């Protein structure tokens, strides 16, 4: 690599790590929103009333068929008084909830019919049936898939820079512009992503195997 300025890279690192904190925060909170909201959508999707299921479907289709970037910019324009990071977390969470809800749905469908029947035979109410029997089994089945969505959300956090969230890539660009060292700053940012997400993927694969049977 010709002319890679190691000094500039070392110089940029603290800034990037500061941005990385924001990246991590957005990923963790965004994943939390996606995990909880996705679950709520999946359970609502099984509601007996169409007044619940149809609106949920429509909103989900809308979110899934528009790009994340457009949703971010749109939400930031709509709620201009809200802090960009908050908007970023909510939009990421909601966007991914439309995917995690499908994952949960498959997990719920994967719980054998006999489990529902055992609950009914024991007169367990709907709340207890979901809480104690169905969801623990469904969530266990889908944990690896949820983990993989968390990783892809992590890699999409740079979009938040567009609405001025000072995450890692935002900082990299700023450093690059200020010191005319784009190559160094972006290479380093890429490396940080790699170092963080590769072991996490491996961990997920391991988890998948362990839960596999």
């Amino acid at each position: 690599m010709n002319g890679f300025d190691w000094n500039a890279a070392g110089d940029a690192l603290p800034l990037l790590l500061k941005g990385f904190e924001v990246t991590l925060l957005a990923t963790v909170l965004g994943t939390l929103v996606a995990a909880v909201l996705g679950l709520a959508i999946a359970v609502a999707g099984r509601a007996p009333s169409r007044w619940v299921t149809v609106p949920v479907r429509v909103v989900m289709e809308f979110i899934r068929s528009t790009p994340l970037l457009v949703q971010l910019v749109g939400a930031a324009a709509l709620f201009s008084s809200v802090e960009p990071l908050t908007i970023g977390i909510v939009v990421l969470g909601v966007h991914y909830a439309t995917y995690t809800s499908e994952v949960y749905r498959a997990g719920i469908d994967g719980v054998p019919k006999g489990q529902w029947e055992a609950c009914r035979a024991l007169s367990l109410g709907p709340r207890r049936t979901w809480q104690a029997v169905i969801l623990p089994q469904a969530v266990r089945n889908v944990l690896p898939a949820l983990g993989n969505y968390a990783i892809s959300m992590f890699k999409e956090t740079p979009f938040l820079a567009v609405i001025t969230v000072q995450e890692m890539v935002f900082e990299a660009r700023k450093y690059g512009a200020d010191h005319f060292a784009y190559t160094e700053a972006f290479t380093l940012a890429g490396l940080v992503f790699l170092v963080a997400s590769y072991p996490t993927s491996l961990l997920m694969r391991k988890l998948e195997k362990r839960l596999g049977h």
Partner: protein
Amino acid sequence: MATEPLPLQKPAAAAPRDAVPATAPRAAPETGPPLVRFDDVVKRYGDHVVLDRLNFSVRRGEHVTLIGPSGSGKTTILRLLMTLEKVSDGVIWVDGSPLSHVAAPDGSLKPASEKHLREARKKIGMVFQQFNLFPNMNVLRNITEAPVNVLGMDRAEAEDRARELLDLVGLSGKIDAHPSQLSGGQQQRVAIARALAMRPEILLLDEVTSALDPELVAGVLDLLSDIARNTDITMVCVTHEMNFARDVSKKVLMFDAGHVVESGPPEKIFSDPEHERTRAFLDAVL
């Protein structure tokens, strides 16, 4: 003597449930009022009529076995009683009250709400062919989950009772095990303990030994004959095991094509059946 004679009148107003305390000396099964009564029950799946105006009854404390060819509707009968399925027509009476209907002010019967069903179900327990234990809970939680959350039993009390039941089914050592760590026979015993923990008046058993390895069957059968002998639970069993019918039940009902072909004590049905259908069926399975 084909089907069982039915009382000519429907039971009058439902007797309050506590009218017969469990400890009171009960009437001999041969003479008591029916605890379960199928009254012209029809069950259809689409165009397929599984039960066609079925009538039969089971008295309190009776142990009844349903036999009959595959597809004759035996499982369907148990699932209707457990309210896992809805009747297409007719009424099932349990202890003098309609099981899945409520009486409207004008005296007609309307399908009951899920909440009503949940209440009605409490008197009935079921053991499934595939056990259906909760794999995410250990044995103790499997047994205490419903008593604590449905009957509102104190957790400590429910656990004491679970220990007694595990003792009864011979699995005291497995209290902390998860279902996946148990053999089929052990899982089925836990499932029996789980059903008994709800103190049901009626226990439904659907081919509870047919998913078991042959060497595990005897243990479960012994346990069930034990329960049949030592409790006053009313039992309705479906089985292909004629030993089971003989050991556990006092009465066998032979079903075919959604009707009771004949009924009687196991010795009679197995050695000297009156109907050709029964004879052919027994020849095939024995």
